[in-house]
């Protein structure tokens, strides 16, 4: 019988982009990511997961985890730790590593995949993961899709679901929205989990989107008023809940704008943006972006160029499954999934 297995994708490249220079973002080091993976593994093991498949990383993140696992395992000898298996190929250091790893994990029948990265990393995983639920953990900068959370608890929650000690339900595993992106006359098809933006810049360059004047249109899968990034713009105009309605926004120069809104576009960077119009979107609605040369940004990163002839369509669609860690742990408490009652305690309860 195959050991109970989950996957781990930890992006070595997240959390160190140009926003550290032009805004107030800090560096999220791979040593801390390795530490997060280690803590995640401890939680998974405690919940009964037997094996973890992990993406190899060009920058040695996987080796860092393995070293930490080997050394710290002796200190934490009382812990049940799953077998750590780093997928066996030489990484390229590109997005292909993530896509290939998710494919391999799905083929291996993992119960869930933990993702450590920013919105961009989660976007890639969502392209390949089908109905395998994701545990979305933030290590990036402007993260709206994943959350900042202690990895040990996230590991416990994943493990409780994987072992079925907590029943999967529509509250513990939730269906997210996504934005399907297509270009007329092109084979390009992509998706975003948070936002799609039309950008004037010709080149993807340093990728991160941080110049407000560059953005002409925006579609968000959900409008979170407390987010950092473009989703916050829509969130201040038309706040919506996750997994529900999206929002379309057309920007305007400040002197021509109908509304101006001050938004935290990046950590330590609040800027004023002019709005020409905005409207809510329902599941299945399609927005055709106005023609223009430049780039299209997906989840805050300039991703591909477009010419004047390209027609870019964005559709609010059904997205990946996401583990709601709070809901799982609350259900675990109600179902007494974690406590083990000793005989003496049981006797007292019976009395």
């Amino acid at each position, binding site marked *: 019988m195959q050991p109970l297995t989950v996957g781990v994708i930890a992006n070595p490249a997240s959390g160190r982009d140009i926003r550290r220079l032009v805004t107030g973002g800090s560096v999220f080091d791979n040593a801390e990511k390795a530490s997060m993976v280690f803590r995640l593994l401890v939680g998974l093991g405690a919940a009964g997961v037997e094996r973890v498949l992990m993406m190899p990383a060009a920058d040695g993140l996987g080796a860092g985890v393995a070293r930490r696992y080997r050394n710290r395992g002796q200190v934490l000898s009382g812990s049940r730790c799953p077998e750590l298996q780093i997928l066996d190929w030489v990484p*390229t250091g590109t997005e292909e590593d993530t896509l290939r790893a998710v494919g391999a994990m799905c083929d291996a029948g993992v119960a869930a995949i933990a993702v450590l990265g920013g919105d961009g990393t989660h976007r890639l995983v969502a392209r390949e993961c089908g109905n395998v639920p994701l545990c979305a953990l933030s290590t990036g900068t402007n993260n709206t899709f994943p959350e900042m959370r202690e990895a040990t608890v996230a590991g416990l929650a994943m493990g409780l679901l994987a072992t079925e000690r907590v029943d999967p339900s529509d509250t513990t595993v939730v269906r997210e929205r996504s934005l399907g992106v297509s270009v007329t006359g092109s084979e390009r098809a992509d998706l975003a989990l948070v936002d799609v933006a039309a950008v004037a810049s010709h080149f993807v360059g340093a990728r991160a989107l941080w110049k407000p004047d560059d953005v002409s249109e925006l579609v968000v899968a959900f409008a979170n008023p407390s987010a950092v990034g473009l989703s916050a713009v829509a969130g201040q105009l038309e706040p919506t809940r996750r997994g529900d309605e999206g929002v379309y926004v057309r920007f305007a120069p400040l002197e021509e704008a109908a509304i101006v809104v001050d938004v935290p576009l990046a950590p330590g960077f609040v800027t004023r943006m002019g709005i020409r119009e905005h409207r809510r979107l329902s599941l299945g609605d399609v927005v055709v972006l106005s023609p223009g040369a430049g780039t299209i940004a997906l989840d805050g990163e300039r991703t591909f160029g477009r010419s004047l002839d390209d027609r870019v369509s964005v559709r609010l669609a059904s997205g990946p499954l996401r583990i709601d860690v709070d809901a799982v742990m609350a259900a675990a408490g109600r179902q007494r999934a974690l406590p083990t009652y000793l005989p003496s305690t049981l006797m007292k309860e019976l009395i």
Partner: protein
Amino acid sequence: MSSTSAAGSEELTQEELLQHYRVMRTIREFEERVHREFATGDIPGFVHLYAGEEAIAAGVCACLREDDYITSTHRGHGHAIAKGCDVIGMMAEIFGRRTGLSKGKGGSMHIADFGLGMLGANGIVAGGSPLICGVGLSAKIRGTDQVGVTFAGDGASNQGMFLESLNLASIWNANCIFVVENNGYAEATASTYHQGGIDVAKRADGFGMPGVVVDGSDFFAVHEAAGEAISRARAGGGPTLLECKTVRFFGHFEGDAQTYRGENEVENARVQRDPLTRFEEQASAAGLVSEEALRAIDDEVAALIDEAVEQARAAPEPQAADLLTDVYINY
């Protein structure tokens, strides 16, 4: 070959794009040719080739003015070309000829042209880092907005001099940019073995300066980040550590058997991470340059490098009496 743009983040004109491509193509052609010429046994001393890392030198130096300064490394040909050094004089220097930029007495690791702000390649690992602090201090004392950029490898980033220089630049709030060309190896030792913490950029936090990682194979990524860092420094914002993840297409030095590299590692990198290919793909897709214009540059550069080798081979060697010149300078 001089710098063309003072601000890295602005949209580039067609003329600028072609100039940046010319710089990268010149570096590539120069290095590929030195690789072949070295194999003939006619080049004295060591050479360390920069091929694969062109986008970094070109992207950074494109954002500098002629009166800005750089300090370089043992792998310095690319930096020298990008800062505008004469490739005829560089090739002659590498061949050890009297017409070389250092009169044939320094070779590959001592190419310099102070008039262009190229303060020298450097055989000392991390040797350029403290020098650039001097540049920053000098600009501060003289009240100019000149910027100094030092290039260093991932191995150099472990040196005390490098870390002390980060500290000096930080406390002086100096106009210094520390560009780390992380090609994954300190000589033959992989960064996974020699580098605690993996990301050099993280070390900037400890010195109170921003640390950024960019794809060093992408000219536009380097250009954007370097442009912002340099503009920030010029405006009094202080130093930056810019880590560029890159790949070298040759060994640490010519003659290195590279037994420490993975199977097909270099071949894959040449396909997937060639800075010139990536530049051409992006600039062409944006409709900003034509293939004809790029191929014309290729031809011109090839002719220039042919000429450089021909002149170098024909040039005289230094004489014994030259040993006693250029040793001391009276200021």
